[in-house]
């Protein structure tokens, strides 16, 4: 729906201050970036600091670690399947490498494992490519311009954004592998936005010291995903993709090495035993858990499954005490609620302004700081813009982009968002967008090394399901980079491992599930919950009260 009259009146205040803001921007005068102390003070308004929002884990390898209730609920939960009912003696499928997850990390892993000579099975919960990768808009970081940038500056930016607690080796790998990943994408036929002579267009993101955000209009993730998915489909002789078949449990062998997974065909409700010489866990994130009831930008299947499975098998978790809230999610119109408005809008110069039309923060602070500043503006300061749906937001002043870069820039650089708003009767080249922070990214996850390996032999981790490289807060553009850097490395390492050591697999076992279940029972926790979740449940409570099938849990009957 178009903006109602009350909001149109408030937009006049944004228009009133715009000429002056544009003039300042053109002169290079910015609202100063916060000092580290100011950042710390602002972060007091971030959802992460709410102690009542989390609790200490009572079971598993990271027992005692405090994280969100929504995470703890799924880590402290019963398995979907009784191990005693599963016949492991005759696997339904055998493969060299099993990749769990069909997003960017999983697909990159599949391609690189295949290049080592491995037969690969990709098991994915929805369709191949239904993943947060597809939804990433703004860009992919990586230094490509030697006259002003190098991995050194990228490293500093990543550490600063992550509060200096990131795992140094992982950061080093991320920034040094980045140029190679960009070249790989270019070679595979991804259409980066370029100057006519082939130079890559780049811009800033929050917390970058150099313009190193590479992009493909405002659908960078989709362009990456469809390119590498197409390549995986060309290698169908070696890469098999099983859709609507999520893994629900890892399978180990009798020596504790990873040996496959139990898959669940969501349509026929059968369970399948896959024996694999190596496994890459690439299930992505967890926005659909709606931590602290926040709206989310994430796709339908982002439900924490991989962390649950690997945690049960003995892999510790880290950095899960922080969650990324993207500063700019749609808060009105209601139909688009939670949808991501790419940081590229701010990278290219759009200000954030409050109900008075005043700028209250530099638009290129790191995401956690930016999100906290918006929450503070709407709560403590009471300067949020009230929506007709009873919420608050602030303006993202997209029309000023036209003043800064010329008429038509908004439609050209942001075709996806332009058409989205057009459907609701809003022209974002003329009217600003109303936004509020939205649950966006799982900063932490499973512990892993630079080659994707974990403390379980034969189990590799890639992408959002892992934790460490982004510390306590990820910068824009480092997630698309992360999934490809570590997806490729994990895939290659898994392929090599499968070839070299795969023959020594012992008897398949789900004993780790029995042990974990026993620990739950002894701790008297989680008996009324089942995980992994697989899909979120949006059924109304009223409707639910009439769905009388016993033990109805998600798609499980």
């Amino acid at each position, binding site marked *: 729906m178009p903006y109602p009259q009350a909001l149109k009146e408030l937009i006049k205040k944004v228009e009133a201050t715009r000429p002056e803001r544009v003039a300042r921007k*053109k002169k290079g005068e910015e609202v100063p970036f916060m*000092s580290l102390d100011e950042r710390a003070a602002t972060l007091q308004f971030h959802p992460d600091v709410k102690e009542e929002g989390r609790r200490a884990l009572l079971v598993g390898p990271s027992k005692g670690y405090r994280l969100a209730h929504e995470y*703890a*609920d799924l880590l402290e939960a019963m398995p979907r399947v009784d191990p005693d009912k599963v016949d492991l003696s005759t696997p339904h499928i055998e493969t060299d490498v099993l990749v769990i997850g069909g997003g960017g990390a999983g697909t990159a892993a599949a391609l690189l494992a295949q290049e080592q000579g491995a037969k690969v099975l990709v098991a994915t919960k929805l*369709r191949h490519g239904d993943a947060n990768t*597809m*939804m990433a808009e703004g860009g992919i970081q990586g*230094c*490509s*311009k*030697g*006259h*002003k*940038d*190098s991995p050194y500056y990228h490293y*500093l930016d990543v550490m*600063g954004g992550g509060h*200096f607690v990131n795992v140094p080796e992982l950061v*080093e790998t991320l*920034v*040094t592998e980045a*140029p190679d990943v960009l*070249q790989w994408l*270019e070679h*595979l*036929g*991804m*259409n*980066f936005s*370029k100057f006519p002579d082939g130079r*890559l267009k780049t811009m800033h993101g929050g917390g970058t010291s*150099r*313009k190193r955000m590479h992009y493909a209009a405002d*659908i960078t993730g989709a362009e990456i995903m*469809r390119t590498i998915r197409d390549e995986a489909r*060309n290698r169908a002789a070696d890469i098999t993709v099983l859709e609507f078949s999520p893994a629900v449990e890892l399978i180990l062998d009798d020596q504790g090495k990873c040996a496959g997974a139990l898959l669940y065909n969501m349509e026929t409700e059968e369970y399948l035993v896959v024996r694999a010489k190596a496994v890459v866990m690439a299930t992505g994130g967890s926005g659909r858990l*709606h931590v602290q009831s926040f709206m989310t930008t994430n*796709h*339908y299947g982002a439900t924490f499954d991989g962390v649950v499975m690997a945690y049960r098998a003995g892999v510790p978790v880290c950095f899960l005490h922080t969650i990324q809230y993207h500063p700019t999610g749609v808060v009105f119109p*209601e*139909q*688009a609620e939670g*949808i991501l408005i790419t940081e590229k809008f701010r*990278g290219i110069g759009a200000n954030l302004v409050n109900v008075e039309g005043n700028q209250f923060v530099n638009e290129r602070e790191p995401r956690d700081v930016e999100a906290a500043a918006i929450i503070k503006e709407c709560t403590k300061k009471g300067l949020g813009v009230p929506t007709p*749906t*009873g919420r608050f937001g602030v303006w993202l002043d997209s029309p000023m982009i036209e003043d800064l870069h010329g008429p038509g820039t908004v439609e050209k650089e942001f*075709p*996806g968002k332009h058409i*989205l708003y057009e459907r609701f009767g809003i022209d974002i080249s003329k009217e600003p967008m109303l936004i509020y922070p939205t649950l966006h990214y799982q900063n932490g996850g499973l512990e892993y090394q630079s080659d994707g390996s974990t403390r379980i032999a034969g189990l590799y981790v890639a992408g959002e399901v892992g934790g460490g490289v982004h510390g306590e807060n990820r910068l824009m553009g480092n997630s698309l980079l992360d999934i490809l850097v570590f997806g490729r490395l994990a895939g290659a390492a898994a392929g090599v491992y499968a070839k070299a050591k795969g023959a020594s697999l012992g008897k398949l076992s789900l004993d780790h599930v029995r042990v974990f279940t026993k620990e739950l029972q002894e701790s008297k926790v989680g008996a*009324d*919950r089942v995980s992994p979740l697989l*899909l*979120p*449940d*949006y*059924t*109304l409570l009223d409707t639910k009260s009439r769905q009388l099938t016993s033990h109805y*849990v*998600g*798609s499980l009957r």
Partner: protein
Amino acid sequence: MSTTAPIGEDKIVAKVTSKHVPIYVMGKRYDVPDSLTIMKAMEYAGYKFIRGCGCRGGICGACGTVYKKPDDYKIHVGLACQTVVQEGMHLTQIPFYPATRTVFDYEQTPAVAEAVFKAYPELFRCVACNACTKICPMDVPVMDYVAAIKRGDFEKATELSFDCIQCGLCASRCMAEMAQYHIAQMVRRIYGGKIKPKATHLAVMVDNVKAGKFKDGLEQLKKADVATLKQLYMSKDAREIEPNMSEDEWVPTNNAYL
């Protein structure tokens, strides 16, 4: 399933309740709030999606939906996650439609139009009926990009097909029975990887990284304690920030670690 913070209806319906209207899902009537998208309305009615739901943000192509309105003979189309319900609409999702995709060896495929013609000879069965363009939920001019491919103009075809989300609705309507979106994907890859000029600055950077040019600087950073890192991070000299409105040619004053 009990959770401490239940996932539930507040995620579907905003606090302000709106008017209810009837919609017909595959012929069956449900009364739903008129402010909801088709996807949320179906969930409101009690559906739980396995297929027909993906990103919920209008980019993945999982939820292509066709519908008719009362007193209107036309077939309308939209993404269930993006389209608001209308009173009396009759709808069904088309979450999947069979489509032919030709496997091709990307490395060996030459950047010529004939390679695409050979992989997809059905291109020339196009009768220019424009049904593909009419059904596209993303307003992609499908017939026009098919014409561009037939002319061998891959740059134009890439530009015109760029917003394609590969939902497959075009293929469902095609009289020539081709899968336009797979053909466009092949064309975009050939254009992006084999025709568009390469980024020479990127190739130089890759070589420099491989030659170990940045190793020492990174070693220093890896060994640095948090206080040193913080000092470097905030320093206007050690970490000079490129101005937002600068041109691509901008160079920093301190080039010690370039």
